[in-house]
C-alpha cells in the first residue's frame, strides 16, 4: 500500500458510512433527435387515435374561446340596447356550445388517454423484451438496482409526458394562440397594451422556474438516496442489531433527513413565490386593460362588451402560460429518462442466434470442448486452449481455486457467453449454430444462489418445465428429498414463496432448484456449487436418489466437497484457465499431483488431532 494506513483512516473518517452514488442525471437539455425518436412511438396511431384526439382537442378549445366573445356581444347588443330576442338566441347558442363542449371533452379525455397509454404500453413492452433478451455481458456490467430503476422509474416519467404532457402542450398552445387571435380581432391596440407585460413575465418566470427546477432536482436526488438507505436499513437489519449500530445509523439518518428538509425549505419557498408572481403580473395586464380600455371607450373606439370579453380572455391567459413552464420542466426530465432508455435499446445482445439455426438434437449427450479460449474482459484470459471430451452419460467434476475457470466452463457450455475462439460441440453440433431455446431445453443448470420467484413452491419447481403436471412436480421434489420439508410448510406445495424464499433456509432453496432442474429432464445436467449449503445427510439422500438420473445423462459438477467429487468419471483440475490434471479419483491420487494434494489437505484436516 502506498499511502500510510493512518492517513487513509483519517481521510476515511470524514466520509459518510454509506455511499449512494448517483449514476443518473435527473434532467438533460432538450434534444430534437431524442424527441423525434420518442414520437416514433406515436406513429402506429397516427391514423387512428391521434386524429380523433387532436380534433376533439381543437373543437373543445374552440368552444372555450367562443363563449367570452358571445358574452361580450350580449352585453353590447342585448343588454344595453335591450334586445330580448337576441339575448334568448345567445343563451341558447351558449347552452348548445356547452353541450357540444361536454361531448368533445369526453372524446378528448378518452382518446388522449388511450393514445398515451398505448404508446407507453408499447414502449414498456419493447424495452422489457429487449432487455430480457440481452446477454450475460450486459447484466455483468450493471447492478440489478440500476437496471430496475430504468425499467420502472424512467418509463414512468415518460408516461407522464405521453399521457398528459404532450397533449397539454398542444392544448395550451392552441389556447394561447386562440386567445391572442381573438384579442387581435377584437382590438389591436388594446391587445398590445394588455400584452405589454407578457415578455417581462415570461423572462422573469423562466428565470425563477430554472431556480425552482434546480431546487426540486436536489430534493429528488436526496430523496432517492434516502430511499436507497431505507432499503439497506431494512435488508441489513440483522447486521445493525447484532453489531449494535442502531444509534450510529440514527445519527447518520438524521443528517440525511436534515439535508432533505433544508432542500425542501428552499424549493418550497421558491415554488410558493411563483403563483403570486404570475398573479401580480397578470394584474398589471388587467390594470392596463382598465386604464387604456376606459380611455378607448371614452374615445368611442370600443364598447363595454369588448372590455368584458377582454377581461374574460386574459383571465384565461396566464394559466396555460404557467402550465407550459411546468411542462417544459417535465420535458427536460423526460429527456434524461429517454436517453437512458434508448441507451438500453441500443445495446445489442452478444449471443445471437444464427439465422439458419437448427434445433439441437441430443441423442447421447457427448460434449466436446475444442481449443476453447475465452476472456470476460480483454487481457484477462479466463480459459486457455481448453479441450475436453466428455462421453455420453459421464460425470465430470471441475476442481480448482476461485478464479481457476470452473464456472467459465459452465457458462460457455450454457452459451451465456461465446468463446473468443474454439468450438463447443454437443453430439457433434456446434452450440453457436443451434437455437438457444433448444440448447437450454437440453441443459439444466443448478446454481449456487438459486433464485425463487414469487408464487407457490409448486410454481417454482414447475419453472423447470412449464407444462409439467402437479404429479410430475411432486415426483421431482421427492427424487431430491425436498418433499419432506415442503410437506411441513403451512400449505405444503401451495405455500407462497415470499421475498425470494426468505422463510426457507439456503439449503432448502437449493433443494427446490434441484427439483426444478430435474423436472426439466435435461440431457445434460450442471451443478455449479449446488450442494454447498445442503447438509450432508440430505446430500447423500439426493445422490442416492439421483444416481439413476445422473447415470442416464452427462453431468458436470463444480464443488468443493470431495465427497461430491470423488465418484466422478472424470475429474478436471483447473488452474488459471488451464487443465493441469485430468482423470478419475484413483488415477489422480496415484499421480500424486495437485488433486492428490487437495485431498490430502482435506483429509488431514479431518483426521488431524485437536490442538494443531
Amino acid at each position, binding site marked *: 500500500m502506498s499511502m500510510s*494506513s493512518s492517513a487513509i483512516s483519517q481521510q476515511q473518517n470524514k466520509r459518510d458510512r454509506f455511499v449512494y452514488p448517483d449514476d443518473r442525471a435527473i434532467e438533460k437539455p432538450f434534444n430534437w433527435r431524442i424527441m423525434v425518436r420518442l414520437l416514433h412511438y406515436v406513429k402506429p396511431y397516427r391514423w387512428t387515435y391521434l386524429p380523433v384526439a387532436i380534433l376533439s382537442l381543437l373543437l373543445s378549445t374552440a368552444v372555450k374561446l367562443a363563449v367570452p366573445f358571445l358574452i361580450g356581444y350580449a352585453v353590447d347588443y342585448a343588454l344595453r340596447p335591450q334586445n330580448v330576442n337576441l*339575448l334568448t338566441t345567445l343563451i341558447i347558442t351558449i347552452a348548445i356550445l356547452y353541450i357540444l363542449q361536454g361531448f368533445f*371533452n369526453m372524446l378528448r*379525455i378518452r382518446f388522449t*388517454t388511450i393514445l398515451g397509454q398505448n404508446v407507453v404500453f408499447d414502449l414498456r413492452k419493447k424495452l422489457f423484451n429487449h432487455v430480457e433478451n440481452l446477454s450475460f455481458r450486459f447484466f455483468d456490467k450493471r447492478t440489478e438496482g440500476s437496471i430496475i430503476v430504468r425499467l420502472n422509474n424512467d418509463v414512468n416519467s415518460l408516461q407522464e409526458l405521453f399521457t398528459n404532457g404532450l397533449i397539454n402542450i398542444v392544448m395550451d398552445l392552441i389556447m394561447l394562440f386562440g386567445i391572442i387571435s381573438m384579442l387581435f380581432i377584437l382590438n389591436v391596440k388594446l391587445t398590445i397594451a394588455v400584452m405589454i407585460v407578457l415578455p417581462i413575465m415570461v423572462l422573469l418566470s423562466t428565470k425563477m422556474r430554472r431556480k425552482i427546477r434546480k431546487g426540486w432536482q436536489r430534493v429528488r436526488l436526496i430523496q432517492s438516496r434516502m430511499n436507497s438507505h431505507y432499503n439497506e436499513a*431494512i435488508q441489513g437489519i440483522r447486521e445493525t442489531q447484532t*453489531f449494535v449500530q442502531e444509534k450510529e445509523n440514527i445519527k447518520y439518518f438524521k443528517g440525511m433527513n436534515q439535508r432533505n428538509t433544508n432542500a*425542501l425549505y428552499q424549493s418550497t419557498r421558491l415554488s410558493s413565490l411563483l403563483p403570486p408572481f404570475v398573479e401580480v403580473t397578470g394584474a398589471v395586464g388587467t390594470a392596463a386593460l382598465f386604464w387604456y380600455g376606459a380611455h378607448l371607450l371614452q374615445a368611442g373606439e370600443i364598447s363595454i362588451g369588448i372590455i368584458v370579453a377582454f377581461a374574460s380572455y386574459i383571465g384565461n391567459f396566464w394559466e396555460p402560460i404557467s402550465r407550459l413552464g411546468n411542462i417544459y420542466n417535465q420535458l427536460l426530465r423526460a429527456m434524461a429518462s429517454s436517453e437512458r432508455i434508448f441507451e438500453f435499446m441500443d445495446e445489442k445482445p452478444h449471443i445471437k442466434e444464427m439465422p439458419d439455426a437448427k434445433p439441437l438434437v441430443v441423442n447421447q449427450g457427448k460434449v466436446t470442448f475444442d481449443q476453447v479460449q475465452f476472456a470476460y474482459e480483454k487481457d484477462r484470459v479466463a480459459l486457455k486452449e481448453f479441450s475436453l471430451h466428455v462421453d455420453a452419460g459421464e460425470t465430470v467434476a471441475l476442481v480448482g481455486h476461485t478464479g481457476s475457470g470452473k464456472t467459465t466452463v459452465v457458462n460457455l457450455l450454457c452459451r451465456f457467453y461465446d468463446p473468443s475462439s474454439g468450438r463447443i460441440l454437443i453430439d457433434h453440433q456446434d452450440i453457436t449454430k443451434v437455437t438457444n431455446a433448444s440448447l437450454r431445453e437440453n441443459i439444466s443448470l443448478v446454481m449456487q444462489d438459486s433464485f425463487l420467484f414469487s408464487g407457490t413452491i409448486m410454481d417454482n419447481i414447475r419453472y423447470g418445465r412449464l407444462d409439467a403436471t402437479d404429479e410430475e412436480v411432486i415426483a421431482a421434489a421427492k427424487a431430491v428429498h425436498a418433499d419432506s420439508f415442503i410437506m411441513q410448510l403451512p400449505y405444503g406445495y401451495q405455500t407462497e414463496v415470499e421475498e425470494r424464499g426468505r422463510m426457507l433456509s439456503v439449503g432448502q432453496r437449493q433443494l427446490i432448484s434441484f427439483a426444478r432442474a430435474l423436472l426439466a429432464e435435461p440431457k445434460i445436467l450442471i451443478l455449479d456449487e449446488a450442494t454447498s449449503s445442503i447438509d450432508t445427510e440430505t446430500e447423500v439422500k439426493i445422490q442416492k436418489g439421483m444416481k439413476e438420473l445422473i447415470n442416464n445423462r452427462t453431468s458436470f459438477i463444480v464443488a468443493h466437497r470431495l465427497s461430491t467429487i470423488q465418484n466422478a468419471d472424470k475429474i478436471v483440475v483447473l488452474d488459471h484457465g488451464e487443465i493441469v490434471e485430468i482423470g478419475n479419483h484413483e488415477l489422480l491420487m496415484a499421480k500424486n499431483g495437485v488433486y492428490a494434494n*487437495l485431498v490430502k489437505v482435506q483429509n488431514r484436516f479431518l483426521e488431524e488431532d*485437536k490442538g494443531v
Partner: protein
Amino acid sequence: MKDFLKIKSFFLPYKRYFILSMLFLVAMTGMGVLAPLLLKYLVDDVILKEQYELVPYVALAVIVVAILKGAFQFLSSYMGHQLGINTVYDLRNSLYQKLQYLSLGYYSRAKTGDLMARLTGDVEKIRNFLSGGMVKLTRIFLTFIAGLSVMAFYSVKLTAVTFIVLGLLIAVAYRFQKVVRPSFRTIRKSVADLNTGIQENIMGIRTVKSFGHEAFEESKFYHRNDEFKQAHLDSSRIWSRYFPVMEMLGGSCIVILLGYGGFLVLNEELSLGALVAFFSLIWLIVNPLTDLGFTINNFMQSVTSAERLNELLETPEDILSPQEPVYQQNNKTEINFKDVSFGYQTRKDTLSDINLDVSPGKTIGVLGATGSGKSSIIQLLFRAYDTTEGAVHVNGNDTRQLHLSKLRREFGIVMQEPFIFSASILDNIRYGDPYASMEKIIDSAKLADAHEFISELPQGYDTIVGERGLGLSGGQKQRIAIARALLVNPEVLVLDDATSALDMETEYHILSNLKSMMTNQSTFIIAHRISSLKNADEIIVLDKGKIVERGTHQELLQQNGIYRKTYDVQHASQTENLRRRSRAL
C-alpha cells in the same frame, strides 16, 4: 379524520403554522373575491356614469389588490409548507428509529416492499396533504362561501338559482370521488405489480436465461403491462364521464347568469357591472370545484397513509432492555442454556430442552440437517428472539435481565448470507466499530483471509461495494463478514454456516487463524463440513430441535450416529471407494 388525528403528536407542535396558514388563506380569499368587484365598479360607476377621471385609481386598486392577494397567497402556502416539512421531518426520524429497534422477529414477517411503500409513498402523501392539499381543500370551501356571499349581497335571487346548480356540481364531484376510488386503488396495485414484476425478473435473470424462459417471462410481463394500461384507461373513462358533466354544470351557471341575470338587468333589479363581475366570480368558484373530487381523494389517501404509518409506529418493540438491567463486569463470558425451548409463530418446537454450557475459550460445534434448529440457537444467544421456556444465561444472569446493547456487543456474528452495505469495503468491515484504526481493520481482514483480494482491487479498501458498487462473490462476502465480526473483539464469535462458499483450503486457513487468536473467547461454529467442526471442544448434533448427540470429535466418531455417518461420507474413504469402483469395472 379520526385516523389522521392518530399522528397528531407530529403536527400539533407546529399548529402555529397551521393557524397562520389558515388566517392568510382567509385574507387571500377575501382579496380574490374583491378583484371582480373592481370590474363591477369600473363598469357601473366609472364607465356608465362617465366618471373617467377615476380610471387610474381603479387600475391602481387592481394592482394593489393583486399584490396583497399574492402576498397572502405566498404566506399561506409558505406556512403550509412549514407545517408539512417540519411534521414530516419528525415523522421520518421516528419511523427510522422504529425501524432500527423493531425485533428481528418482526422483520421475518414483514415484507420489504410494504415497509418501503410506507416509508416513501405514505410519508410523502402526508407531507403533500399538510403542505398543500389541506390549504387547497379549505380554499375551495372558502371561495365557495365568499363568492356566493358577495353574489348574494348584490342579488339574492340570482345567487339562489346558481346555488342550486353549484349544489348539483358538488354532488357530482363527490360522487366522482366515490366512484373513482376503487379504480385508483386498482391503479396503485397495478403499478406495484408491474414494478415488483420487473424487479423480480431482473434479479432472477440468470435463472430465467438458464432455463431459456425469456418468452414465458415476456408473456408474464405482457399481462402485467396490460393490466396497468387497463387500470389507467378505466379510471380515465370514469373521468371522461364526470368531467364533461361538471363542465356542463359550470357552463349552465353561465347560461343562468346570462339568462336570469340578463333578465334582472333588463328589469333594472341588477346592475350591468354586477352581472359582469358575476361572470368572473362564477369561474372562481366553479374551477376549483371540478377539482374537488381529486382533492377529496387525495385527502382520503393521506388518511389511509396516516393510518398505515401509525400502525408501524405503534408496533411494539418486543425485544427490549429491562428497566433496570443487571450490571455485570465481564472480562470473560460464560454461556449456559438452561432447559431452553423455543418455537417461532408458524413452527412449534423449533428447539426443545436444550442444555449447553460454554466456558470462556471453548469452541462449540453445531451439526444438523436443514431446519434442525441450528440457527435458532444463535438467535436466542443475542436475543433476536426470546425463549419460550427456560433461559439463556450469560455469566450467571438471564439474558433478559441484561442491558440489550451490552449483551449484543459481546458477540461477533457472521451469518450465512451476510449483508454487504452500499459503502466502501473499509466501512463494511468497520461497521461494528466505525472508529477502529486502519491497522486493526487490516489485521482483521488478514485473519479473515480477505486482505489479499481487497488489496488486489484498484481502489483497495476504498472500493465501493453493495447495491450500486462492485459485486462480490459469495466467498468474498463471507470473508468480509468474518473480518467485520473479528474487528469488534467479540467475547463470543459465532460462525453460522459462514464459510460455506469458501474452498476448503481457505476455510482451513481462516479457522486456524481463529484458533490461535481466540484463546480466551468462545466460538460457536455451525457447519455442514466435519472439517470445520472437528476441533471444537464440544460438538452438538441437532435433530428436529433436540440435541441427539454431543461430545468431542473422537467421542462422536465412536457413537456411530449422525455425526459418524456424516464423517464417513465426507471423509474420502479410499478403500471403500476403490472397492466400489473395481466392482463397477
